[in-house]
């Protein structure tokens, strides 16, 4: 039987050792990690590019919108100025308090027994009317009747539609020549607040 001699045995051993070389695994592992990392970096870059693109679109849109918006804001300023003018004129025209109808309705406050010597009506800036009158009650039990009349005023029993007495505005009753049973002079003063909605 011929002798078999493996002439490349040594070379095969070297290759076997090299095949089990841990360095090879380390290098392969390192390369894999680098590839994965590069892939993730690419992913993040793509995402970043997308966000930049969306932001650029938004910026461009804002630049377009802003130009028009600034013009509209200027327009709004003049609209507001005009609105303020119109409002003040509207108040002047439609929210008068001392009007002809009021003068007519005010007769409700005057009794047939009362002889007025003077009456003053003046409006304030708060949609109120200062009412003041001096009168003489002519009739039986004049002083008592003036007292009753004052109590009715105080109790809010005498009313005009669209106006109400401002709380606490009724001045204390002042009487004169009380020694006369049938003629008593007195003064009444109070404020009426206009309820502009109710008056409509």
């Amino acid at each position, binding site marked *: 039987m011929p002798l078999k001699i493996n002439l490349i045995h040594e070379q095969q051993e070297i290759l076997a050792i090299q095949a089990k070389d841990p360095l090879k695994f380390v290098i392969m592992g390192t390369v894999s990690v680098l590839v994965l*990392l590069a892939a993730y970096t690419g992913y993040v870059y793509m995402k970043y590019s997308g966000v930049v693109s*969306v932001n650029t679109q938004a910026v461009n849109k804002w630049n377009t*919108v802003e130009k028009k918006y600034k013009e509209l804001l200027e327009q709004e300023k003049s609209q507001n100025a005009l609105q303020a003018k119109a409002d003040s004129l509207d108040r002047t025209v439609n929210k008068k308090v001392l009007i002809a109808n009021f003068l007519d309705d005010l007769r409700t406050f005057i009794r047939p027994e009362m002889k*007025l010597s003077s009456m003053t009506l003046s409006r304030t800036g708060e949609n109120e009317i200062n009412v003041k009158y001096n009168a003489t009650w002519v009739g039986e039990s004049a002083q008592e009747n003036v007292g009753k009349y004052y109590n009715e005023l105080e109790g809010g029993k005498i009313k005009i539609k669209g106006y109400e007495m401002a709380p606490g505005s009724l001045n204390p009753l002042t009487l004169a020549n009380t020694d006369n049973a049938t003629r008593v002079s007195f003064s009444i003063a109070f404020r009426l607040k206009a309820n502009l909605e109710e008056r409509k």
Partner: protein
Amino acid sequence: MKLSKEKIQSLVLAGMVFAGLVYVMVVMMILPWQAKIVVLTKKTEELNKKIKDAEAHGKRITDAEATAKRNEEMVKHFEADMPTTPIITFYPPLIKKEIVYKDIVFSQPSMVNLSPDLAVVGNDFKRIGWVLTGEGLSYHDLGLLMEKVENKNPLWEFLALEITENPNNQMKHFFKITFGTVTRK
């Protein structure tokens, strides 16, 4: 297995290159990009909200054009009644012309200072006070006169009335009228 000196040197070099690459990718690329993504996303959201708000506000302004047009016409209409000449020469003859009642003689209208709450009419207008006195009007006549003036010029308003009895005629009183005219500041 024993590593040769050259191999160890190569491994150290390769390790340094690896660490360098990881550093470049992570610290110089991934982290800044991620930070920018967060910032840009927030900025974009804010910008989109700003655009949406501006568009909605713009729509409201555009929608208000009809009201503005009406206001403009209203202001023009009333401003046409306001004087361009000095008020002290403009109003008295006009008032004398408008405040007429049968045979009643009214005094010359004289200008009076009004309290600020009556004198100020918004930012653009002011109210001027005028006083007239006279004799011979009844309470009823005053109401009719007031109605006439109200209908004639809506910018005119009675601010105060003072009626005093006339000992000679119970129906024809003494009176003092304060009324206001609205004009440009």
